[in-house]
């Protein structure tokens, strides 16, 4: 409570304080019109400064956002209403909402949507659960905790391309693949990971899980360290076991953080692209010979950059955007309910 007034003071001195300062100075030199004018000018300049400086300071972000965020977004929307080919991007033919309506009976689109959803579930759920567990473990007093914390973040810092390449080798069809070799040791026949529907989705999810678990764990860890120690102490006094403490103290306190990671992971899962692209042989945009692991992002890429239909690709992009808006609304509703319950 005590530092809040000092904050406001340094951030923006109020007009009242400024007025007081002027009065104090006016008392020193009662009549000096030139100085008075100078002061008035300065004060005007000052007021303008206070008023406009914040805008100037945030302008760079918004300029960039305008150029690389909003403009492409709107232009994509415009393109989605046209027949446009990559080879002749200036040649646009108005088709109205046809690019959207055709998605309704586009089997490849529904397949991609289904895949995006299932891969999203198989990758996000275990990922967040594991992250929560890892964070809980790292929250204990550990020897070399710094090392572990950095270590779990390294997958996040690895490039998708490098990670996926390694996973492709691990999930290789032949007995040379490390996973099939391991399965062979326990007497299970080699699995053709890439060509099976579920196995391929599982393999793609494995890459996602590997890359993002540590990142989420660190977010959870940060939130856990903000939980007051006395909560645990009183829980312990009440005779709560560690598991009970985790369930009844840690998890409820983490609720907003968990919601945040859920939203971020969902957005990430909706836009999943690099992993399935590189997981397929020859970086083909089809996501396997049956499109078995083609996500929405991949289908968008296939339509735009492989089939060269920018209009159709733009429509998919906007559909993805609308799906994300829906998810955002859902998140808003849920978080409001959580806040009300709390």
């Amino acid at each position, binding site marked *: 409570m005590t530092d809040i007034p000092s904050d406001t003071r340094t951030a923006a001195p109020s007009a009242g*304080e400024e007025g007081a300062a002027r009065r104090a100075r006016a008392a020193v030199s009662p009549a000096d019109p030139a100085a008075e004018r100078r002061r008035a000018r300065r004060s005007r300049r000052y007021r303008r400064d206070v008023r406009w*400086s914040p805008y100037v300071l945030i302008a760079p972000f918004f300029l960039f956002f305008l150029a690389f965020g909003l403009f492409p977004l709107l232009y994509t929307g415009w393109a989605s209403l046209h027949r446009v080919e990559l080879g*002749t*991007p200036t040649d646009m033919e108005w088709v109205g909402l046809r690019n959207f309506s055709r998605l309704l009976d586009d089997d490849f689109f529904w397949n991609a949507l289904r895949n995006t959803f299932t891969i999203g579930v198989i990758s996000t759920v275990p990922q967040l659960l594991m992250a929560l567990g890892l964070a809980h473990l790292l929250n204990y007093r550990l020897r070399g905790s710094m090392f572990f914390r950095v270590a779990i973040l390294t997958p996040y810092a690895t490039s998708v391309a490098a990670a996926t390449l390694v996973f492709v080798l691990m999930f290789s*069809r032949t007995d*040379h693949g490390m996973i099939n070799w391991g399965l062979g040791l326990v007497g299970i026949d080699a699995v053709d990971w890439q060509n099976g529907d579920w196995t391929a989705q599982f393999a793609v999810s494995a890459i996602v899980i590997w890359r993002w678990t540590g990142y989420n764990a660190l977010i959870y860890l940060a939130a856990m360290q903000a939980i007051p120690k006395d909560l645990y102490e009183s829980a312990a006094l009440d005779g709560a076991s560690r598991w009970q403490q985790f369930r009844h103290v840690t998890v409820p306190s983490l609720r907003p953080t968990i919601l945040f990671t859920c939203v971020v992971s969902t957005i990430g899962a909706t836009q999943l692209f690099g992993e399935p692209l590189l997981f397929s042989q020859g970086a083909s945009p*089809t996501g396997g*010979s049956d499109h078995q692991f083609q996500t929405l992002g991949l289908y968008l890429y296939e339509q735009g950059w492989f089939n060269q239909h920018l209009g159709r690709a733009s429509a998919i992009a906007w559909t993805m955007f609308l799906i994300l808006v829906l998810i955002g609304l859902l998140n808003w509703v849920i978080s409001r309910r959580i806040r009300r319950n709390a």
Partner: protein
Amino acid sequence: MAGTSGLQEDAMRYRTRTPRRRAVALAAVAALATGLLAGCAEDSDEPGGSSGGGGGDGGGKGKTTLTVGVFGAFGLQEAGLYDEYERNNPGIEIKQNSVQRNENYWPALLTHLSSGSGLSDIQAVEVGNIAELTGTHSAKLVDLGRTQGVDKGAYLGWKWQQGTTKDGKTVGLGTDIGPTGICYRKDLFEKAGLPTDREEVGKLWAGDWKKYLEAGKRYKQKAPEGTAFVDGATGVMAAVHASGKEKFYDAEGELVYKDSAGVKEGWDIAAQFAEAGLTAKLQQFQPSWDQAFANGSFATVTCPPWMLGYIKDKAGDKGEDQWDVAAAPRPGNWGGSFLTVPEAGGSKEEAAKLVAWLTAPEQQAKLFDKRASFPSAEAAYDLPEVKNAKNPYFGDTPVGKIFARAAEGVPVQPIGPKDGIISQYLADTGMLGVDQKGTSPDKAWDKAMKTIDNALDQ
């Protein structure tokens, strides 16, 4: 009171410092904004400037700078051809802009062509893209057929035609081509009881891909443990398709992929290869395919001249003298490029002259000698660099003669803008499933057709 004076002081300091601070902030914003604009502008201005501006004042020494846009290790520079041209033409300076992969190079070239900026004076184009270029962008390119020193008769007819539009404007001059033969493992053939001499091997399947299939069945009966006759069904399909009179387009430029006899033949033969278990179930240019060269897991592969270097690279010392090259059942073309001159360039005449020189038989022969890019100019086949060329890794095979014979047998096949897309889908979503998953050929065909239809629908 102390509090107030503190406030006052703060306010004063704040005020006296703001103009400078604001100036800094404004300057930062201005710098960012101009950077942003410049960043956008540079993209279109700079390369145009370097090419267009090179008209006569480049370098200030009266030198004309010509820029050449290529993809990958194209070979012209590596073979020393630019240096030689610069020596013979003191007023010319050549600069090369290279993009690593054609998948990135080609879309950029398309956008540059449609905006008329950012182009090099000379732009290379891969054969897979040449039909789209002649079909939709020929108005933006110089007619090279009329350039002085270009002799139509020196080139292979089919290559010349690929770079020419329907109304006879030659916008691309051929550099190299990829006439196909069959590379085979002599040691594996011997163990399987097949002939090993390249003439006899060629006779095994001369003229008919079905005979190639029969040879595969013979191979399988006595196949050495852990080896297959070919690398994969998709490779066979592509080879058969390349060797037919008609592929995905007919002579009028109409799409006929659904009922073209050539497409059907390739599909059926490749499916029989898969169903008879004659393939190693590999997809070309994948790590597992590379490994298979080193392990010797298959006995034959369709190979254009440029593949020889690839095999040598992947099979390594262990594979030396094991491989040889025989004639294919029917030769086709696999790969190759063209050089074009955009109309928007600054020194079109000089650029066209350079293209004419670079694609002349003598230079193509040099390129073959240094970089193994096979000449598209028929006249080069009688030059010693090609005629006497032998490949020591392949047991001194007379590659120049073998591939020259193949090049002359390559059919004149109509090509179209969507060839690349169709053939990739036919393989990736069709034949690959037959080969690797055991999908029935009919089902796989329907699936591939559905994907192709969706892909072609604008």
